[in-house]
């Protein structure tokens, strides 16, 4: 059908334009602007391969955590315990390796199993005990912190072995392994969320759990699996963290939570019209990190990077909102009666 194929092409063209529109990828434009700016400001240190490598490596863990977080958020559940789960995995793997001397593989797999179990408990509390995800994971994070304190006696755990250290830090083309792990995980989660029925079920559950259930989605299962996957990713991040620190540190987990949330939420405003998505999240992590790096290299006062994080988050989202609503208003004249401004 020629008519049809024209429609197709048009849609493709329109789609491309739409994808490149400022409001849809504001973070990318901000990112480009920053790269240019800092390259002019600190030409010796900023536009270098070193910087790229450093930024990639520094943010791999935050990115993994944020990617994990995308899953429960897409399914409509908060996971406030990811930070402490990361900490738990970091301590458990160190404890298994050093105190229990269980060997590399058993320790890593055991830690992932512990992570999955925590995720399962989270999920079951939400789905079966019907506690809201916010409370469940808030409570769980307290329990996990207690567990960390119990296992580690609040002390660092050392002697993890050189092999283990290689897991995160072994360089390939100068880039440490953890970056590749992050990329593989991102692709997996992206594939599932964007290209399978399962992913659609996840978004449906997040959009309207009752409606999704009425249309045959096993929403309970979806929520539980999202939380389990999220915990697994947090555990991977925790293992990589212990590996790159060469230490199991009992205090570091919670600090990772807010950056992961910021990235996931900022990411949701990119590419997919307000839907939590992997690509946007990874981009968000690196946009924020690039800015911070540039500011640090330019010698800004200590508090400037923190300020930047906040302002960048707000500006990127606000721009997206403004431009988005302007576009929607313009398309109101379209033949379809898509309720353009949702005024009513």
């Amino acid at each position: 059908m020629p008519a049809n194929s024209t429609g197709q092409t048009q849609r493709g063209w329109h789609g491309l334009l739409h994808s490149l529109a400022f409001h849809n990828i504001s973070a990318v434009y901000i990112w480009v602007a920053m790269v240019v700016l800092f390259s002019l400001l600190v030409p010796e240190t900023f536009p270098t391969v070193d910087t790229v490598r450093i930024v990639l490596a520094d943010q791999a863990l935050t990115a993994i955590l944020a990617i994990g977080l995308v899953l429960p958020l897409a399914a409509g559940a908060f996971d406030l315990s990811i930070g402490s789960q990361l900490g738990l995995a970091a301590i458990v793997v160190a404890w298994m390796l050093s105190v229990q001397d269980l060997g590399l593989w058993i320790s890593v797999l055991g830690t992932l199993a512990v992570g999955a179990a925590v995720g399962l408990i989270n999920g079951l509390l939400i789905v079966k005990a019907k506690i809201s995800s916010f409370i469940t994971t808030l409570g769980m994070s307290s329990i996990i912190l207690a567990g960390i304190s119990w296992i580690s006696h609040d002390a660092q755990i050392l002697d993890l072995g050189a092999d283990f250290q290689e897991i995160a830090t072994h360089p390939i083309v100068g880039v440490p392994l953890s970056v590749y792990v992050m990329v593989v995980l991102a692709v997996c989660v992206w594939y599932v969320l964007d290209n399978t029925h399962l992913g659609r079920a996840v978004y449906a559950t997040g959009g309207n759990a009752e409606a999704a259930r009425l249309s045959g989605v096993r929403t309970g299962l979806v929520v539980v699996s999202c939380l389990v996957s999220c915990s697994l990713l947090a555990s991977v991040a925790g293992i990589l963290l212990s590996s790159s620190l060469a230490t199991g540190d009992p205090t570091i987990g919670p600090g990772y939570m807010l950056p992961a949330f910021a990235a996931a939420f900022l990411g949701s405003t990119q590419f997919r019209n307000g839907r939590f998505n992997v690509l946007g999240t990874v981009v968000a992590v690196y946009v924020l990190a690039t800015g911070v790096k540039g500011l640090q290299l330019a010698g800004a006062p200590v508090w400037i990077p923190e300020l930047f994080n906040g302002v960048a988050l707000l500006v990127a989202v606000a721009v997206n909102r403004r431009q988005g609503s302007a576009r929607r208003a313009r398309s109101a004249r379209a033949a379809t009666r898509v309720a353009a401004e949702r005024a009513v």
Partner: protein
Amino acid sequence: MTSEQRRPLVRVDQLTKYFGNTCALDRVDLTVHAGEVLAVVGHNGSGKSTLVKLLAGFHTPDGGTIGLQGEAGPETELRFIHQDLGLVGSLSTVENLGLGSTSDGPPWRRLRKMAERLQADQLVAQFGVDFDVDALVQELSPAEQTIVAIARALRGWNEERDVVLVLDEPTAALHGAEVDRLMAVVRRVAERGAGVLFISHRLDEVLGVADTVVALRNGAVVGNLPCSETDYAGLVELVAGGVVEELQRRPAERGDVVLRVNALQGGVIRDFDVTVHAGEIVGVAGILGSGRDELCATIFGGRRRTRGTVRLRDNDLASGDLRQSIRRGAAFVPGDRHQHGAVMTMTATENLASVRVPGVEGRWRRVRKSHESREVAEWFAACGVVPARPEMQLSQFSGGNQQKVVLAKWLRTHPNLLLLEEPTQGVDVGAKAVIHQLIVRTANQGAAVLVASSEAKELAQLCDRVLVLADGVVVDEVAGQELTEARILHASVPA
């Protein structure tokens, strides 16, 4: 229909469901056969939606069984259109259509996005409409959403499977022509061997499409008979438990001009003028997309106006300043109860009293709760809301009763201008008459009333004159002797 053809597909046996002390279903028996359209009728809160939700496995029964096994064949597949449509608003039409279907292999199989979109376009085109299947469902109008829901229920169906289609008030948001199309689809589905369980308060539809009627009252079956053995009056009696006096409205004497709308423009509406006098009830008809479902909101100020003025008595109503509109006596009952009409998580009392009426507050701006509960009790009685437990959360009332609460909330403000969208959607015949009476009473007290409805019959009964919209402009005005259901329908279908 011969007896071999009457193959039972779903057998409901002694089904019982309690919500706390409320008995929503009381030992209900019914059977849906292949090739049969079974209509379930009953007053608001009689348990129809509960029956559907039990069939869907959403609630678990407190007693009785649901048999889905045919004589020998495979298990019957049930497909639903729920009263609140059961769509995921944050997904697009394409995505909603593909949701939860098990026919595409394991859940981790790759999606065939192109094919899905083509199929969605085709399914939607079946209903003679055309909208962006990539737009989020929450951005579609209620009627379009209904079409998505129907399309989803019919997706991938063929004669080899035993299917029962369960429709819970699918026509509440549809206009005459669309209803006809839906009815044709329902009949066709039944003729091809599926069973249909159909729920509606529009009894003439029931008579037109159903083979058998089951009537519920307070959760119990009070009638189960072939359609051919009853007529409209009979059905009304089954539902309402008595004779309902339908409104016979004589044109009231016109008072002063209350509402004057000039060159209104906004959204789909391109140019709209109307003058409504005190005591006058003006109807607005039109098919999907004609602007019928945007008009009231635009006049009220809740939807953006790009041009034009609205004058209520001696004041202009500004666009966007809803408090001013309300203070000057405007009232607006939106068509989409869930999104715009009510706060489902709050109690009926709180919803009913949510519009601020001057002079009811005590000192320190305290809400005088005893005063309020007395007032709410009166409105519950006046509108016949059941159960009479105003402290219950609104989401726990049946659809029709929710609608009554939303209406009462606005009637309570004693408005000068009453703007109604689908005022009696989902309301049973008995209650509908009551609501019509309330609307007329408000008009007679000097209010101007504008009713946008997809139900031509209602317009014909209730209104003094009816404006017919098409493509955002008034194309016809029907009044006086001409004001009949058929005439309105005729005028609103574009040539």
